[in-house]
């Protein structure tokens, strides 16, 4: 996942979403160690203070935890991870509904379109 930032949204919030995506996608697996703040900041091309702010919030949400001597890790708490996935997917569904209602589809039509959708991967399989 690339570090790309949109305009008009605080960068620390965008970092939080990106890191959640990385956790959800298994790029940062449960129990794995997170890079030091400065390294992450360099990779993302952002201010280390901004990165620190994002990591602190993820800690408060229970997705990351710090072990005083060895660094920062991704949680292994299945419940927390499940809830994070749920809230991420809700965001996608919300975006989908917003986009499709803009082109004039109602709720039923959207649900119909989603349930009849076959991804190209599935077809090939």
């Amino acid at each position, binding site marked *: 996942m690339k570090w790309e930032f949109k305009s008009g949204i*605080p*960068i620390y919030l965008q970092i939080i979403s990106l890191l959640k995506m990385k956790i959800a996608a298994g790029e940062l697996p449960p129990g794995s160690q997170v890079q030091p703040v400065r390294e992450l900041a360099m990779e993302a091309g952002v201010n280390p203070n901004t990165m620190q702010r994002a990591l602190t919030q993820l800690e408060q949400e229970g997705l990351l935890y710090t072990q005083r001597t060895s660094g920062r890790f991704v949680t292994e708490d299945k419940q927390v991870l499940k809830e994070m996935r749920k809230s991420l997917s809700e965001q996608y569904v919300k975006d989908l509904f917003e986009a499709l209602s803009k082109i004039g589809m109602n709720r039923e039509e959207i649900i119909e379109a989603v349930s009849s959708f076959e991804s190209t991967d599935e077809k090939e399989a």
Partner: protein
Amino acid sequence: MAVVVCNNLTKRYGKKTALQNVNLNLEPGRIIGLAGPNGSGKTTMIKLMQRMLVPTEGQVLIQGKEPGPETKAVVAYLPDRDFLPDWMKVSALFGLYQSYYADFDRAAAERMIASLGIDQNQTFKKLSKGTREKVQLILTMSRKAQVYLLDEPIAGVDPAARDYIIRTIISNYNPEAMVLISTHLIADIEAVLDEVIFLKEGRIVLHENADDLRTKVSMSVDEYFREVFRC
């Protein structure tokens, strides 16, 4: 406590006012963007902090002291144009910095130069413009200073060099230090800024936390800059 303070700082060149009643408190541990169009007073402000110019009125204090030899020992300054004796070899420039500045980390500078594949035995003036800018930045950032004053460090370099420069700034500044970066190209550096200052015709029109500003105006700092300074 603020590491750089400006009190009613004013600079006039004859009848022309370059800087008008500037009041600022800049805190350590911050990367601060000093943004404004050409001629808005950015370079004047930085030069006042280095005592290369003398205020017409008001004052600027660095760690509570007037700029002078004592403050220059803790301030790493990157001018907006080539400033090094260009007949010297890169290795000799390292020696120059080492003899001038007690806080210069030569080993760090040599590592960075080597990682870029720049030949230390090359004469400075024979390097390309982008490489010269990188060498100057490396020399500046290899000091363990309290204050970094970077005047247009990214003007006129290609995007790859710009990314390199930004990474060099992030990875080398001391977290207790304050970095002031002047620029008229905000988009290039806005992701690394804690705070932004907008300078318009010698006056400060905005000084704010970058993420707070994005929330408030629902725009990137760059978009907002274009709106404030629309011609």
